[in-house]
Each structure stands twice: as C-alpha cells, then as structure tokens.
C-alpha cells in the first residue's frame, strides 16, 4: 500500500472520466484531511457528482488514483463499504415502509453501528418513527437519507448536495445537524452549489469548473485572494446620456468594475472611500442613482472572478 501522510483521509490524483464525448472530470487533484469538512463547490455540470461517485466506488474512473482511508477500491472494497456513510443525490427511499423499517434495513447491512432508534433521534425524526417515508416532507426525507448514511457509524461521510431543493428553514436545520457531526471527528466531503452552504459548513473548499479544480483553500483564503473586501452594486438610469465606466475604474479604493444588464458591479477594497467617490462621480456625470447595494465578498464572487460566470448560470 502506498504510504500517505496520516492526515489525508482522501487523496485523489489526476482523475479523469469521460461519458461518451463529454469530459466530466478532467485531471482532478484533491486532498481531504482527516476530521475536516471539505466542500466541492461548483455550478451544475461541473463534475462534482461524478467526482464524488468515483470516490464512493460507484463509478469507475477512466484513469487516475483514489486513496480513501489509506485503502483503494480495487483491493479493499468490502472494508471501505463498512466505513463509509453515503448520501446520494436524488435517492428516493421506498415510500411504503416506515422510518424505523428503513433504518433497520440499512442497519442490517453493516457489522457495526448504533441501534436504529439512536440514529433516528440524532436526525430528530423520533416523532416520525412509524410514519411511512412517502408521507415525509422534503427536509424530513433528507434527514432520513442522512440517517441512512450514519447507521454504520462511518469514518468518512459523503454528502452529495444535501440541501438542494429544501426551503431555507429545512436547509438551516440540516446544516446544524452536519455541524454537530463534525464535532464527532468524522471526515466529510460534501458537494454543493450554494456558496453560503460551503462558507457555513466547510473548513476548506475546492471550486470546480469543467471537471477541474480551479481554486482550493479555506473560504477565507479564497475570498482574501480576491484582494477585495466588498462588492458595490448599483443601477443608474433615466439620464440623457449613458454612464461612463472608465472614470469609475480610476477612483480610489476600486479594484475592478464590470457592467452587465444595466447594473454595475465594483470590487472595492475601501468601502468608506469608494462610496462617496462614486456618488460624486455620478453627480458630475449627471446620472441619477436608482439602486445601491454593498456586500462583503463571498465565494460566489470568487467564482465569478475566476470564470466570468455565476454559480447558478447553468
């Protein structure tokens, strides 16, 4: 077995996978440390699910190497299965069986693990214990799916888009659960296309686009790498002449300016200098302001800066 640093729970090298003529994963490199929650962030179609399913041993890569908990799929599949907790995107559990019956079924596949009732309590489905799966809400189904991933007391947890399609409250509830599992020292790899989810849950993230990792680090590091703290967005309209962009670029504390669909977005290092300067400049040009917003830079801004596209464009 290849020696690896004891802190790496998952190491992926030069991974490639092609479906017919679509390159889903294109030379991907990844390292997830033991005990951390690592986020794979990217738009739909970036190759996140393919990557995670290769790591889960459900999809064969065309080439590349996956080392998980110091083992490999071709030699230690049975042992790996016992130690992984997996939640897939879009799994629909059987509707006619109850929560308890579902958990008992999944529990029966693993040698070790907590009693079913304990797992159900963990995801707060005690009240639904005898309800059929078909009658659960979206958030409850997602928590049940999480419970199914936890029945084997896994060392490594894979969560593929755990909150997609949930309402904000159900999402936040699931986040709190995942936060608690992190306290137990489990390693988690999760994919998401919600940047707030990655910022909230993940110690480190990798931003994926077109099957490649285009940036990797802590959310803080990635945002800092932009070199700007704030984003200013405004709309101006109703003027006789169009707004001139060039003078904005020369203003103090402004890093970059881009205009699209009538709104202008400025990357700003010093908000307290840039905003008064912007107001002065608009007055000089005789262009009235119709809307003004500022926010701290996010992973979304990192993605936009790196690719020129928004995460949810596709």
């Amino acid at each position, binding site marked *: 077995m290849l020696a690896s640093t004891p802190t790496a729970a998952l190491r992926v090298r030069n991974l490639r996978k092609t479906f017919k003529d679509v390159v889903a994963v294109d030379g991907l490199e990844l390292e997830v440390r033991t005990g951390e929650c690592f986020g794979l962030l990217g738009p739909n179609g970036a190759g996140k699910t393919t990557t995670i399913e290769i790591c*889960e*041993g*459900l999809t064969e890569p065309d080439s590349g190497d996956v080392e998980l908990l110091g083992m490999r799929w071709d030699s230690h599949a*049975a042992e790996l*299965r*016992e130690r*992984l907790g*997996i939640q*897939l995107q*879009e*799994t*629909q*559990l*059987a509707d*006619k*069986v109850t929560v308890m*019956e579902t958990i*008992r*079924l*999944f*529990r*029966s*596949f*693993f*040698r*070790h*693990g*907590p*009693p079913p009732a*304990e*797992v159900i*309590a*963990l995801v*707060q489905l005690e009240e639904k214990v005898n309800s*059929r799966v078909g009658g659960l809400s979206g958030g409850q189904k997602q928590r049940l799916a999480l419970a*199914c991933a*936890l029945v*084997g*007391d896994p060392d490594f947890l894979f969560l593929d888009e755990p909150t997609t399609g949930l309402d904000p*409250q159900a999402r*936040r*509830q699931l986040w*709190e*659960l995942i936060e*608690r599992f992190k*306290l*137990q*020292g*489990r390693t988690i790899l999760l994919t998401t296309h919600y940047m707030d989810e990655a910022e909230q849950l993940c110690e480190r993230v990798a931003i994926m686009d077109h099957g490649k990792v285009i940036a990797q680090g802590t959310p803080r590091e990635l945002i800092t790498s932009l070199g700007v703290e704030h984003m200013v967005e405004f709309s101006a309209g109703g003027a006789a002449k169009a707004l001139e962009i060039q003078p904005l670029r020369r203003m103090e504390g402004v890093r970059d300016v881009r205009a699209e669909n009538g709104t202008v977005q400025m990357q700003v290092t010093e908000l307290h200098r840039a905003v008064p300067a912007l107001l002065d400049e608009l007055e000089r040009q005789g262009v009235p302001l119709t809307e003004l917003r500022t926010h701290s830079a996010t992973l979304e801004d990192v993605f936009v800066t790196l690719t020129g596209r928004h995460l949810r464009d596709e």
Partner: protein
Amino acid sequence: MSNITAIPEIRPREAAGRRLGPEPRERSLADNALVQLTLTRFREFVREPEALFWVFVFPILLAAGLGLAFRNRPADVLKIAAVTPELARSLRQDQLLDVQQLSAPAADEALRTGKVALLAEPGPGGSVVYRYDDTNPEGRTARMLADRAVERAAGRVDPVAASDRLMREPGSRYIDFLIPGLLGMNLMGSAIWGMGFAIVDARRRKLMKRLIATPMPRHDYLLSFLLSRLVMLVVEVGFLLGFGVFVFKVPMRGSLPDLALLCVITSLSFGALGLLIASRARTIEAASGLMNLVMMPMWIVSGVFFSAQRFPDMLQPVIKALPLTAAIDALRANMLQGAGLAQLSSQLLVLAAWLVVCFPLALKLFRWR
C-alpha cells in the same frame, strides 16, 4: 430553530472507538440483511392495494366469471316459432323446445333477427315446412327436435327404445380445465410483474444505487425477491385452489407435495425470466412493454383458456417449449389425471431449462445503477 436544541449531546470521539451509543447486544436473526430485505419486499407488496387485487382477487373473479359463463347446464332449451295453433301444440310436446305461436310476418321477423332458431309453417297437402339456417348448429338441432315432435304427435312410434345416462362429473368440465390454467397464468404474472416492477422501480428511484453503496451483499438483494415470492406463492396458490375446490369442486387427483414442487419450480422459472426482463430497463414503461411482449403470446397459445392443441401441428414444438405451456400441462396432469412427477419429466425439463438459461444471463446483464 428551537427544535435543534433537542439533539442529544454527542460524546467526543474516542481514540479508535465508536462514537454512538454502546455496542448492541448480540445480533438477532431479525438484524440479518437477507431477512430485512425480504421483510421490506413483503411490506412493500402488502401495502400496495392494487398489487393485492391483481394477485389475489383478480384470478378468483376471473375463475368465478368464466366458471359461471361456461358452467355445464342441461342442454339449452331452443326457441322456435310456429304459425298455426296445431303445429304449436304438437311442437310443445318436446320439453327441449320453447315454442311461440306468431303471425306469419312476426315469425318471419323473429327468424331473421335470430330470436328463434327455427320457424315451422304448414306446407301444401298437410306437410310441414321448416325454415332455419343450416349453418347454425342450433338451427339444425331445432330441426331434428321439431321434426321428431311433429312426427310423434302424428302417431309415429320409434322401433328401438332408447334411454339416456348423463355424464356431468367433476374433472371433465370447463372449470376443471380452467383452474390449472389460471393457476399457471397467475404464477407467471405475479413472478414477472412482482420482480419486474419492483426492480425497475428501485433502479429508477436510484434506491438500488444507494443500496449497493452499502456493504449489502448483492446476492442477498436478488435472493430476497425469490424468498418473498415463495412466501407469497403459498398464499396465492392456496387462495385460487381453495376457491376452485370449495366452490366448483375441482378435483385434486395428484399428490399435493408434487403439486407444491411444480408451483415452486414454475415460480422460480418465471422469477428468473422476470429478473432477465428487468435486468436492464431503467423505466417502468420500458419494462412493462417488455413484460407484455413476453407474456401476451403465452396467454394466448399456452392453453390457459382453451387447449394449446388447437394450434397447427407445425407450431406445437414451439408452443410446448414455452414455460407457461409446460407449467399448465404439468399442473393439469397433476390435478386432473393424478400424474406423478415421472410422467411430467418433459415439462419439468422445459421449466428447468428456462431457469438455468435465464438466471445466469440476468445476473450477467443486471444493471445495478
């Protein structure tokens, strides 16, 4: 978010140990994967009212309906018409004729529209004219009965005395023929539908993919289908045969263990065929198309409702090689003739061949995700 506070406190991770709760007591049989999978199959089936209807109620309704429609009745009373009171009186002497006296135009109309099978009218010189359709068996029978009644009324005496002894014994009626046919059809339908829909549905829901992401042994998954099938088989067969025996007095002349064995082999063969049909399909539509394609010809040619012998000799080898034909022939021979397994070796061979070919092929082709 107030309900979040209800989460139980989680112990910090122990060095290499478990994080949740104490190690459970020794695992019981109920914690076995195969038992749990089979129980789940069973629950899903029992909680599906439609499935229960098609498997248990439908065959019985079918048997009851057909048994009533084709019950052996005393020979039909034939409706005929006569245009004169004298003729009507002579004809009424025969119990098997229902005679109406009608005016000539009305009788004409009744004959043309098939309300009566024959019309008797006086001919020239005291003779009788019978008008009927000689391509209609009822018409020909009516002609013989009517003429016998008319001649006897006119004083004919039969030179030879004859009497009837009627045979209406269980074992030779249509319902006796039908019940083993329905049993075979039911074994085929529930095995193929039961396996097919459940497997394709699990694949479509990505549930199968989720299951193989656990340490679940794959053969346990497939085995659970066969096991639940065998449990259901007992109920299914018991229902239909019980109905046939108690309501229609269908005979069971063969040995019961032989019959049970036949049912099990039939069910396994069709289970393997169902597995093969479901091995690749990703949608319910694709699977049900395939299932109908496979089952429809057998419903027609394998002798469920009428003897397979009616098809041309040229086709007989093909028909005999079909699993449903083999199953039904064997079930009928067991129930109606009391045949032993040794006499059914060719049918058993056909069923075994389907099992041995379909099962490995299905495993090889099976799409797990």
